C-alpha cells in the first residue's frame, strides 16, 4: 500500500531508476525565537536519500541537521516546500510515516530508569510486534549490539556506547526500512562509534535499509554513500563524499617544517596567511589547503619541505564553508601583546596529580590518576563521555574535593589553599558560564570585578579582551544572542581577565563550527607561547594533535600518556595511512580490554 501511494503521489515527478526514500524539495523552516524574532532554520533545502544507502548530513551546530530529521519524521512541518518519506507527504500523513521509520533522537530517547529488557519491551509493544517476531529479532539484535549480558541493567547505568546501541536496538526492533539517526555518536567512545558504523553498513547490505544520519564528525561523513553539507540552514553541497573532497582538488598540501621551526608555529603562520583556507596538524607535518582564487606566497613556508597531496573530505568541507562565509583565510593574526607571563627557560611543573581518586558511593569516577603538566604546555585529557575527564577537571579547579591523592596546582596544595590557587587559574566550563541576558561589556566588567581588578588594570584588561578576541563590534549585544564562536571567545576572555597562569578548558569546542575551532586552537597556541599553561578536555580525537602532551582516559583510568606523535604510534592505521589518534585510541582500549579479560580468566 505504501508503494501504491508512493506511485500515486510522486510517480509523476520522478523518473529516476531508484526511487528516493526521503525527498526534500525546497524546504524552508522558520522558528520564532523569543517574542517577535523570526529565525530561519532552513532555507530552500532540496536533496534525497536513495533506497539502500547511507546519507550523511554534516555541519556545525545550528546548521539545521536536527530540523531536517524532525521534518522527516513528522515532528515538525515545513513552512515551504515538501518532505516525502516513501512517497507519503509527511505533513499530510505524519502517522503513516511515524509508524514506519525508525528514529533515534539525540540522547538516544531511552528511559534511564527502565532496564534494557524493559526498554525493548516498551518499544516492542508500541510497535505491536508479536511474540514470534520478537523471538526472532531479539537474538540477532543482541548479538549485533552485544547487549545480551546487560538485559537487567538500568539503561541509565550503561556507558555512553551501550546506551547508543540500546537506542539503536529499540529503533530497529520494528524492522523499519528507513532509519533516521540524529547525532548518534556525540560523546561516544571511538570503539563504539566504529561498531555503530559497522552495524549500519551491515544493515544496509543485508536488509536494504535506507539511512539518514546527522553528524558533526567529518570522518563519519566519509563513511556515507552520499553527504549533504549544511551550514546556517543552507545546503552548501551534496553528493558522494569524494565530490566534497574535490572542492579542494589541487589545493591540499603537506608541509614538513625545518628543524628550526616548531610544528605549531608553522601551522599558526599558515592559518593566518591570505590564500590559505585551512591548516591542521597531521603527525609531524602540517596539512594545509590553498584557496584556488587567491594566490599564496611561498615565503610563508620558509624552508619547509612541501608536497601536494590528495584532498581529504575535511579539506573540501573547509573550502565549502569558507566559500559560504565569503572569505579566504579568516583568522586575523593576533598582534603584539602576549599575555604578560614570564617565560622561563626550564619550565617547572605547575600541575601535579598523584594517586587521585574520586568515589561517588561505590562507583569510582576516577581511580589512581597520575600526571604532571609543565609551564607553557598544552595538555589534553581525552576520552569519551563518562571517562572521568570532567570529574578530574573539577578536582583540579578545586570545585570538587578528591576522595584521596594529592593535587598541586601552581605550587599550592588544593586541599589547603583553594582560594589562593583559584586566583592563579582561569576556568571555562562546558557550555560556557556567561550571563546570557547581560551584554558582552557587562560580562567582562563582572568577571573583572569578581577577580578583584580595579581602575586602570581593569580598563586595560577589558580593552585587551576586546582587541584580542575581536569583541568590539558586539560590545552591547546580550551574550546569549552571540553566535556560537563568539560565545566561546567571550567565555575565554572572561576566564583570562585576571591573567591566570593556568587555563582550564572543559570541552571548549563541542558544538562549535570548524572555523571557530581552528580559531580557538590558534588562540590557545598564542597563550601557550606566552607561558600560560593550558589544560583542555575534548572528545574530538583529532584535536589531540594540538596538544603538547596528552592522556587518554577510559572508565576513570589513564590508559596512555605522551606526545601526540608517540600516542599515534600505538595505533595501527589502515594500509598506506599513518595511524591517527583515533586508531591509537581503539588499539589502546582493545589492548586494555584484552588484558582485563586475561586477568579475569
Amino acid at each position, binding site marked *: 500500500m505504501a508503494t501504491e501511494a508512493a506511485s500515486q503521489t510522486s510517480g509523476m515527478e520522478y523518473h529516476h531508476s531508484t526511487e528516493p526514500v526521503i525527498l526534500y524539495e525546497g524546504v524552508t523552516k522558520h522558528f520564532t525565537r523569543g517574542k517577535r524574532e523570526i529565525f530561519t532554520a532552513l532555507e530552500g533545502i532540496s536533496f534525497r536519500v536513495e533506497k539502500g544507502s547511507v546519507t550523511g548530513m554534516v555541519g556545525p551546530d545550528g546548521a539545521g541537521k536536527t530540523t531536517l530529521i524532525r521534518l522527516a519524521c513528522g*515532528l515538525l512541518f515545513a513552512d515551504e516546500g515538501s518532505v516525502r518519506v516513501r512517497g507519503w507527504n509527511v505533513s499530510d500523513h505524519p502517522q503513516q510515516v511515524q509508524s514506519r521509520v525508525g528514529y533515534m533522537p539525540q540522547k538516544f*530517547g531511552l528511559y534511564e530508569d527502565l532496564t534494557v529488557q524493559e526498554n525493548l519491551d516498551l518499544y516492542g509493544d508500541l510497535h505491536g510486534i508479536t511474540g514470534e517476531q520478537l523471538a526472532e529479532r531479539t537474538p540477532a539484535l543482541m548479538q549485533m549490539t552485544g547487549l545480551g549480558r546487560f538485559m537487567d541493567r538500568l539503561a541509565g547505568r550503561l556507558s555512553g556506547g551501550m546506551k547508543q546501541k540500546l*537506542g539503536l536496538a529499540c529503533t530497529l526492533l520494528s524492522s523499519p526500512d528507513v532509519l533516521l539517526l540524529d547525532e548518534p555518536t556525540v560523546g561516544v567512545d571511538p570503539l563504539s562509534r566504529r561498531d555503530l558504523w559497522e552495524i549500519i553498513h551491515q544493515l544496509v547490505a543485508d536488509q536494504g535499509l535506507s539511512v539518514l544520519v546527522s553528524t558533526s564528525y567529518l570522518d563519519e561523513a566519509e563513511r556515507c554513500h552520499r553527504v549533504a553539507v549544511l551550514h546556517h540552514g543552507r545546503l552548501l553541497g551534496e553528493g558522494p563524499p569524494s565530490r566534497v573532497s574535490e572542492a579542494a582538488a589541487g589545493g591540499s598540501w603537506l608541509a614538513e617544517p625545518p628543524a628550526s621551526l616548531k610544528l605549531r608555529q608553522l601551522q599558526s603562520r599558515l592559518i593566518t596567511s591570505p590564500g590559505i583556507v585551512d591548516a591542521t596538524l597531521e603527525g609531524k607535518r602540517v596539512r594545509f589547503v590553498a584557496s584556488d582564487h587567491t594566490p599564496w606566497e611561498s615565503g610563508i613556508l620558509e624552508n619547509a619541505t612541501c608536497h601536494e597531496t590528495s584532498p581529504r573530505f575535511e579539506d573540501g568541507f573547509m573550502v565549502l564553508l569558507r566559500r559560504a562565509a565569503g572569505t579566504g583565510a579568516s583568522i586575523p593574526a593576533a598582534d603584539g601583546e602576549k599575555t604578560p607571563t614570564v617565560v622561563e627557560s626550564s619550565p617547572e611543573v605547575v600541575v601535579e596529580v598523584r594517586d587521585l581518586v574520586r568515589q561517588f558511593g561505590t562507583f569510582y569516577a576516577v581511580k589512581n590518576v597520575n600526571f604532571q603538566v609543565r609551564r607553557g604546555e598544552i595538555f589534553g585529557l581525552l576520552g569519551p563521555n563518562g571517562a572521568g575527564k570532567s570529574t578530574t577537571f573539577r578536582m583540579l579547579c578545586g570545585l570538587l574535593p578528591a576522595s584521596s591523592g594529592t593535587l598541586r596546582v601552581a605550587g599550592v596544595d588544593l586541599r589547603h589553599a583553594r582560594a589562593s590557587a583559584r586566583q592563579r587559574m582561569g576556568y571555562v566550563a562546558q557550555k560556557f558560564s556567561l550571563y546570557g541576558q547581560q551584554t558582552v561589556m557587562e560580562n567582562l566588567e563582572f568577571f573583572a570585578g569578581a577577580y578583584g581588578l580595579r581602575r586602570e588594570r581593569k580598563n586595560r584588561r577589558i580593552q585587551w579582551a576586546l582587541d584580542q578576541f575581536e569583541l568590539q563590534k558586539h560590545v552591547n549585544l546580550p551574550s546569549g544572542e552571540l553566535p556560537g564562536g563568539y560565545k566561546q571567545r567571550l567565555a575565554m576572555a572572561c576566564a583570562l581577565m585576571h591573567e591566570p597562569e593556568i587555563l582550564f578548558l572543559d570541552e571548549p569546542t563541542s558544538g562549535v563550527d570548524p572555523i571557530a575551532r581552528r580559531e580557538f586552537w590558534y588562540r590557545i597556541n598564542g597563550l601557550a607561547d606566552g607561558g600560560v599553561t593550558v589544560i583542555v578536555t575534548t572528545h574530538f580525537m583529532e584535536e589531540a594533535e594540538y596538544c603538547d602532551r596528552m592522556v587518554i582516559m577510559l572508565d576513570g583510568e589513564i590508559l596512555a600518556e605522551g606526545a601526540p606523535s608517540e600516542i599515534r604510534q600505538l595505533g595501527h592505521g589502515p594500509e598506506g595511512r599513518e595511524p591517527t589518534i583515533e586508531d591509537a585510541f581503539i588499539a589502546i582500549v582493545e589492548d586494555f580490554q584484552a588484558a582485563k579479560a586475561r586477568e579475569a580468566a
Partner: protein
Amino acid sequence: MGFVSPQDAQGKKRKSPGAASLRRVGALIRKEMLQVVRDPSSLALAVVLPLLLILLFGYGLSLDVKDAPVALVLEEVSPGMTELVGGFMLSPYFKSTVTPSMKEAEDLMKARKVDAIVRLRDNTSRELASGRAPVQIIVHGVDANRARIIQGYAQGTVALWAAKRGLRMPDSSGGLVRLQSRMWFNEAVDSRYFLVPGLLVLIMTLIGALLTALVIAREWERGTLEALLVTPVQSGEILLGKVVPYFLLGMGGLMLSVFAARALFHVPLRGSFLVLAGVSALYLLVALGIGLLISSATRNQFVASQLALMITFMPAFILSGFIFDIASMPLPVQIMTRILPARYYVTLLQTVFLAGNVWSVILPNASVLAGMAVLLLTLTRRKTRKRLE
C-alpha cells in the same frame, strides 16, 4: 500493511486497531508505574510528601488554643480568690502562673511569655461583697484570632466561677433568656476535624497537577517523548498513558489519607466513602487536566513545577477555604475563588466527612467539578499533538 489509508491519518480507527492500541496503552502505563517506583523524586512526591503533610498537619498544626500561658495577678489572697485561681489552674486551656504584682505580669506580657493577664485587684473581695467585683482581663492582641479565643475562654472560666458562687455576670442579665449553644458537626471543636479532610485537596493537587506536569516535562528534557512520538502510538494513547497511572496514584493517596484520618486522628467520616471517592476522582481529573495543560505549555521541569505551584498548589492552600474561611475574605477575592476547583472540592470534603451525604451541597459542587474536568481534558486532548510545535 494494506489497511492503512489516508483517512485514518488523524487517528480515526477503521479496522480493529483497538486491540493493538490497548496493548500500547498498557505498555505506557506499565512504563510509567516502573518509573514512579524507581525514581526517588516521584516516589517522594507521591507517597512521602502526602504522609509528611498528614503528620505535620495532624500533629503539628492546630488552630485550637490549649495551654495558653496566663499570668494571674493576685493582689490579695482570700478564699474566694483562690477558688478562681484554681479554676484557671485546672482549665485545659490555660497554663497559669501567679504573680504578686501587675508590674511583673506586664513584663511577662511584653516578653510574650504570657498571652493574657487576669488581674484581681486588692479590693476585689470587698467589692464582691458589695455586689460589683471587676475582674480585669488583658489579652495579647497581636494574633487576633488567638486573642479572641483566649478572651472567650477566660470569660468562660470567670463566669463558671461566678455561677458557682451564685454571682451574676453583668452581661448575662436577668434570668428570662438563657443562651444555650451547641456545636454541630464538629462537636469537640477540634480543628483537626476540618484540617485533615482538607489536606486531601493538597495531596490530590500535588499528585494530579505537580507530579504529572513534572514527569512530562522530564520526558521532554530527556528526549524520551520525542522517541515515543515517532512510533505508531497515537496522541490519545500517550495521554491515557499519563492520566491512568497518576489517577491511580492519586486514588491511592486518597485511601492513605482517609486511613490516616480515621486511624490516627479519629476524624469521623459521616458521609459514605463511595461519595467521597467519587468527588475525589472528579477533582483528581481536574488536577490532571491542569497538570497536562501546564506540560503542554512548557517543556522545562523548573518552569513546570513553578507553574504548577503557583496555579494549583498555592490557591488550594490559601484560597480554597481549607484553612482560611472564604466568607470572611474581601468580596473580590471571594469572587476569584469561584474559578478555583480546589474551593469546590474543600466544600465537598468538609461536608462528606463531617456533615454526611448532604446532597444539596454535594450535587452543585460536584457538577462544577465535573464540568471543569470535561472542559480541561477536552482542551488537553485538543492541544496534544504528535508534533514539536
